[in-house]
């Protein structure tokens, strides 16, 4: 983890137990009444002391959302969400920061123990996660803030950015994912509560990985965070996002929006290890993860790279995309999506080639076990001016057991005759031969599955930052536990 001792100290001081009970008793919580209407949006905006333009933008989104219908084209099935039965704002009344971590949800501690994160970091993560859970997206960065600010990097919560740097936010928010983009993104635009904001100034190669741990905690609360990352000309940043959620009986909605903007010669590397609670064996209680992630390679020679390891959520609906606008810009998408039990994932990417000689690479590894369904859905679109555009797509699916499903749905549209688009797809099973071979060498059946799956995902795993890769590797093992007899 890119977390240092200072952070550990700071996190130790967080009042995690109070926050926890706060949710149960509602005493320490400030919660908007259930339901969604213009007043709720005004309430959120006022709470966050937002400028008028942002409130207007939210309302515009809301009014547009009312005219939209929930999409049903994805290969996922879930009970209809009652949008009036959710809280759209929930936060502890005051976020003082003292006390110990002794009363952190033991389940959470156990999770991290299971992940093999050392005790110190474990304390730390629980703390950070807890902070995010109260929608005060305090991220690891806070500790580095002074150092980052010195270099001109802005890394803070989006609420803070709205207050401190309104001109940058206004310029870029909604510029990649417009408020009218799609049902969930539009809903997010209307009600987003928090998220992270990053700005890397011209020519700076951000020397540390910026990371945020998201966590959903409150009951019946939708989480709508919004992340905006801007890499100015010649800048570079690597951003990590981790997600967890506690076990609940009811499904929780998570509808985030992430916007990335890379200007001339800039590069953004965005890595996600998504481990939202997947629900019980029947999918009950898991997170509905309906996320819109999109990056714009606005400048020449810019590059955006998405790497994701998706192991959690009951339902995942997510297509991190790149708009390759600048000439010679590069988009990459590396994905591992694992579904077990009753999990459903419909995920993939969109590569939109606008500029000349733009290139994109898509490597997707889908793993299904139990009764799970896993769909890769991808669009490669070459526009008329994208002379010499190139795409390579590889989709591999791995099945464990005989009740799960893997589906590949590639859409390819080329409007420029000079473009070259390649698509490769394979589907395979973990064979009984492989299992026996590994076990004959002493590996338990679970260790064998984990090893084989990690091998299958190798091309993607090597794209993850080192610290994340270790965590992701273990996660793969954990999420497939019990998938073989």
């Amino acid at each position, binding site marked *: 983890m890119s977390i240092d001792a200072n952070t550990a100290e700071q996190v130790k001081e967080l009042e995690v137990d109070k926050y926890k009970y706060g949710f149960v008793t509602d005493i320490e919580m400030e919660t908007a009444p259930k339901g969604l209407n213009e007043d709720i949006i005004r309430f959120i905006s006022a709470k966050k002391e937002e400028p008028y333009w942002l409130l207007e933008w939210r309302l515009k989104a809301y009014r547009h959302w009312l005219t939209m219908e929930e999409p049903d084209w994805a290969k996922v099935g879930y009970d209809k969400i009652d949008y009036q039965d959710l809280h759209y704002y929930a936060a502890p009344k005051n976020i003082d920061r003292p006390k110990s971590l002794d009363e952190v949800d033991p389940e959470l501690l156990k999770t991290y123990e299971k992940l093999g994160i050392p005790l110190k970091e474990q304390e730390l993560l629980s703390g950070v996660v807890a902070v995010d859970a109260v929608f005060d997206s305090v991220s690891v960065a806070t500790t580095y803030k002074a150092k980052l600010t010195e270099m001109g990097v802005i890394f803070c919560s989006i609420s803070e950015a709205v207050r401190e740097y309104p001109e940058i936010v206004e310029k870029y928010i909604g510029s990649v994912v417009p408020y009218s983009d799609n049902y969930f993104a539009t809903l997010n635009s209307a009600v987003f509560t928090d998220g992270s904001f990053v700005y890397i100034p011209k020519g700076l190669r951000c020397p540390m990985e910026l990371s945020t741990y998201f966590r959903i905690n409150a009951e019946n609360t939708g989480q709508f965070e919004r992340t905006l990352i801007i890499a100015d000309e010649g800048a570079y940043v690597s951003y990590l996002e981790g997600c967890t959620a506690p076990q609940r009986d009811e499904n929780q909605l998570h509808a985030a929006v992430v916007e990335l903007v890379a200007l001339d010669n800039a590069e953004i590397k965005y890595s996600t290890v998504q481990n939202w609670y997947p629900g019980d064996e029947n999918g009950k209680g898991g997170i509905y993860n309906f996320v819109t992630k999109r990056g714009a390679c606005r400048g020449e020679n810019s590059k955006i790279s998405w790497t994701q390891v998706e192991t959690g959520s009951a339902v995942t609906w997510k297509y991190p995309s790149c708009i390759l606008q600048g000439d010679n810009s590069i988009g990459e998408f590396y994905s591992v999506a694992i579904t077990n039990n009753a999990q459903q994932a419909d995920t993939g990417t969109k590569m939109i080639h606008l500029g000349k000689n733009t290139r994109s690479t898509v490597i997707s590894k889908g793993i299904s076990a139990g009764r799970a369904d896993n769909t890769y859905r991808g669009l490669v679109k070459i526009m008329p001016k994208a002379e010499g555009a190139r795409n390579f797509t590889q989709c591999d699916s791995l099945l464990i057991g005989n009740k799960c499903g893997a589906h590949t749905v590639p859409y390819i549209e080329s409007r420029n005759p000079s473009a070259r688009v390649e698509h490769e797809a394979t589907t395979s099973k973990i064979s*009984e031969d*492989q299992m026996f*071979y590994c*076990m*004959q060498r*002493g590996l338990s059946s679970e260790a064998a599955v984990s090893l*084989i799956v990690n091998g299958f995902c190798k*091309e993607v795993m090597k794209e993850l930052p080192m610290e994340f890769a270790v965590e992701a590797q273990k996660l793969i093992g954990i999420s497939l536990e019990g998938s073989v007899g």
Partner: protein
Amino acid sequence: MSILSIENLHANVGETEILRGINLKIEPGEVHAVMGPNGSGKSTLSYVLAGRDGYSVTGGSVEFKDKDLLELEADERANEGVFLAFQYPVEVPGVTGMTFLREAYNSRLRYEGRDEADAMEFLKLVRSKAKDLNMSDDMLKRPVNVGFSGGEKKRNEILQMAVLEPKLAILDETDSGLDIDALKLVADGVNALRTSERSMLIITHYQRLLDYIEPDHVHVLAHGQIQRSGGKELALELEANGYAEFFDGKV
């Protein structure tokens, strides 16, 4: 004390009885060869001993170092010291030989309640084992068995065996698919791993492997039973006369 003691072993694949009462005792340090025609139950015997799914034991017993081997899962048997060199070593894409072997080695250490090996130490161990066998450890940098030639696959099995130091090594048709040079190389490796403690069960159709790995005992398997046992000269006799006499006209 025998290392392996098989008594009246019966086993089915599906509904079909393949092993029909096998009796075999192996002492520490002994090399036994089981020879037999196709379909005699040779490979089934090796799979039953290693604990592969899909083979059901219907009668008899197998003791390994005084333990009831049939009670153990495949991985437990491996960790107790049973090693099967596969006739067709399996590909594990994306997993380097080194990672695979380290996982295996550490599984054993954990099974024995010991600490896992340090990565550097393990690397040294593997290098020295490879050197003893006169093999390069280069293939351990590649994904397990992916794109390996027949000879490389079998050499890789022997190298794994050298690192895992089994008490009982079962070599299932290790000679199949090897040209004479590759066969010699593999046989030299096996011979280098012979000790007064380690027992081996060599399963083969042809005698030629036994020119290079000299067995203490030879058994002829047909119809799921051991029909005859003898010294290494029995192998030569089989080479000359074939297996016909063991079929009794009931092929």
